[in-house]
């Protein structure tokens, strides 16, 4: 005996509707309901998909690849130059937000700057997130939004990423890794090994702002000072500079500050570098923090400053090119390359004396008194 046709059809239709409802619900974009990051947000399941769709993709303008890799046409890149530049850096700053920036914008600026100081036009970034259980979702959203904004403003795209959640206590709230790809125009080659005696050293502005801002933002010093981080993308400034003058070497002055970079250059080039202390631009607020703590602004980190070496004949043109850009208006000649004391950096003080300017051993630690 066969069943009546009509009920079967009705049942079939009802099942279809129910399945469609389930599928629709499964694919419906949901908002992350939790207040804090939980283990499930890194588990590869729905919670993670929600996190990606609700927080990450909108922040990055949905530019992140849905496949496991981003893909680019080689011909487009080749049109920009002859060398691919590729870099990576990981950001672990405390606190996550600070006057002048946050870990997200800093991760974008830092990687752009790593590409820029090699002369590359930055194109694409990746974003690897390590989240600690308990990180407030609102804070994460703020940081990701800031990261996306920083990328948009700099004209680069965040095209691939990864998210992991680690148990509470296994990380310090949020770590970000960014890798970056860019293209170096044909004919551009900058390296500390190209330095020659007589070259002048220039920086694009005041030193130590980021390091001082972070020290104050940690709130351990009971200091109130209007110091802001200098976090900024330097690629346009660099392009203006390399178009104006031949640049022998360039480096962004991050951890270890100016002192670390000049020491690395002196070592690589086996030449002496001499810094003229009174010429180094330092904000008086930063100098004040350093005086209180027994620190040297030349050892403090920057996130929007670079050091460039150019042949002496081009020093004024280089200064002029930098000062025309908003991020270079306080640019200054701060020293020169010499053949004296190979491998050693000296600093000429305002008293006409000279001394060694060494790298810091470990991190900057305040003195007792």
């Amino acid at each position, binding site marked *: 005996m066969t069943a009546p046709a009509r009920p079967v059809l009705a049942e079939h239709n009802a099942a279809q509707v129910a399945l469609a409802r389930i599928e629709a619900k499964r694919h419906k974009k949901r908002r992350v309901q939790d207040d804090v990051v939980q283990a499930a947000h890194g588990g590869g399941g729905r919670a993670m998909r929600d996190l990606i769709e609700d927080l990450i993709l909108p922040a990055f303008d949905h530019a992140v690849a849905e496949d496991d890799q981003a893909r680019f046409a080689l011909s487009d890149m080749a049109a920009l130059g002859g060398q691919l530049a590729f870099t990576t850096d990981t950001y672990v700053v405390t606190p996550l937000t600070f006057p002048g920036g946050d870990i997200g914008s800093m991760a974008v600026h830092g990687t752009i700057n790593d590409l820029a100081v090699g002369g590359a036009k930055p194109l694409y970034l990746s974003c690897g997130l390590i989240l600690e259980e308990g990180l407030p979702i609102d804070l994460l959203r703020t940081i990701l939004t800031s990261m996306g904004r920083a990328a948009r403003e700099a004209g680069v795209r965040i095209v691939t990423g990864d998210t992991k959640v680690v148990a509470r206590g296994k990380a310090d709230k949020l770590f970000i890794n960014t890798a970056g790809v860019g293209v170096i125009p044909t004919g551009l080659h900058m390296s500390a090994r190209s330095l020659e005696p007589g070259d002048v050293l220039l920086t694009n502005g005041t030193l130590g702002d980021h390091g001082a801002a972070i020290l104050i933002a940690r709130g351990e010093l009971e200091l109130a000072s209007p110091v802001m981080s200098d976090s900024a993308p330097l690629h346009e400034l660099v392009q203006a500079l390399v178009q104006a003058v031949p640049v022998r070497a360039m480096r962004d002055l991050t951890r270890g500050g100016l002192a670390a970079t000049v020491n690395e250059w002196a070592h690589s080039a086996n030449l002496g570098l001499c810094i003229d202390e009174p010429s180094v631009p330092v904000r008086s607020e930063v*100098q004040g923090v350093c005086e209180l703590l027994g620190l040297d602004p030349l050892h403090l980190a920057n996130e929007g400053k670079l050091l460039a070496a150019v042949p002496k004949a081009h020093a004024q043109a280089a200064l002029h090119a930098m000062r025309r850009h908003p991020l270079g208006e306080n640019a200054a000649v701060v020293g020169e390359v010499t053949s004296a004391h190979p491998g*050693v950096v000296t600093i000429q003080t305002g*008293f006409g*004396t*000279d001394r*060694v300017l060494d790298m810091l051993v470990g991190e900057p630690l*305040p*003195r*007792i*008194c």
Partner: protein
Amino acid sequence: MKYVSEFRDPPAARRLVATIESLMSRRPKTLQGAPLKIMEVCGGHTHAIFKFGLETLLPETIELVHGPGCPVCVLPVGRVDDAISIATSEGVIFCTYGDALRVPGSRTSLAGAKAEGADVRTVYSPTDALALARANPSRRVVFFGLGFETTAPSTALTLLQAEREGVSNFFVFSNHVTIIPALRALLDAEDLQVDGFIGPGHVSMVIGVEPYHFIAEHYRRPFVVSGFEPLDVLQSIAMVVAQHVEGRAVVENQYSRLVSTQGNSAAQTAIHEVFKPRAHFEWRGLGSIAESGLELQPRFARFDAEQAFRVPALSVADPKACQCGEVLKGQLRPYECKVFGTACTPETPIGSCMVSSEGACAAYYSYGRLTSLRRASGLKVHP
């Protein structure tokens, strides 16, 4: 910067150097060419001298001797071991000033212990440690009390506050030291080679100027309490040299804008209320000095880390190769030490003079290598 740039004025520095040169030319003919050794007692002065390259401005006959006034430099190996022993005890948060982290003990440093899992935290003042104790009632929070009379008052005031609040999980491991017994021990050393002193400005803000009079009266050495800016240091040197050429030995106060004759009585009262002198305290390089260290008064016994924890309390000899003692007494310049710049560097310090940036050896290594390079190669120190 206001209140700083005035004391870093190069033309004024040149005038002071000219004064010093002129004074030195007035020395008796028999002394012309002989070194005049002036000790800057305080590590803060050592730092300023190197940072601004002051030594190279001075006549070559003036030799600066870098004294024992860096609290990190004089911390003996045994006390570092004790600190590590406390820091690695169950449930402890150990709080220290930053520059003590890397001082070597006999096996490791506090930084090493931290890397191995001890909860060691850098603080900027003892009140930060007390705040940690309040925030972590289930942990024992120990503050590593270090420093001369400069920092002892803040440790004392923090302990008074802890007592008022009845905080039961806060402890102090006191390694505070006092400058006068150390100076007396130095002056009693037969091998001391020092003609005059620049006195510690920060310590003197607390103790005043009077406690130094015995140095001038009994030991016949000029003593000038000095500030820390380059012009302060140069002016103080000029004052010591003036006394020397005039055959005088008195205590003078160059740092009168901050240091009064009597010092800070409130700070002195706090120190005496909380601390009492130890019978003996060991100094790295200088050995045991009577009544030179401070321990907690019996009233504060419950805050005393040395009573709350089982510390080894062993006297550990300084490493054989280390000549910190000779450096601190002016017998050796840092670069004349056997291990300076080879086995002993800021990355791998053997002696504590190589650890803190106020230490004579670290200052020479980081800032003054040009001077030692020039001396070693027979060149003039002056650029």
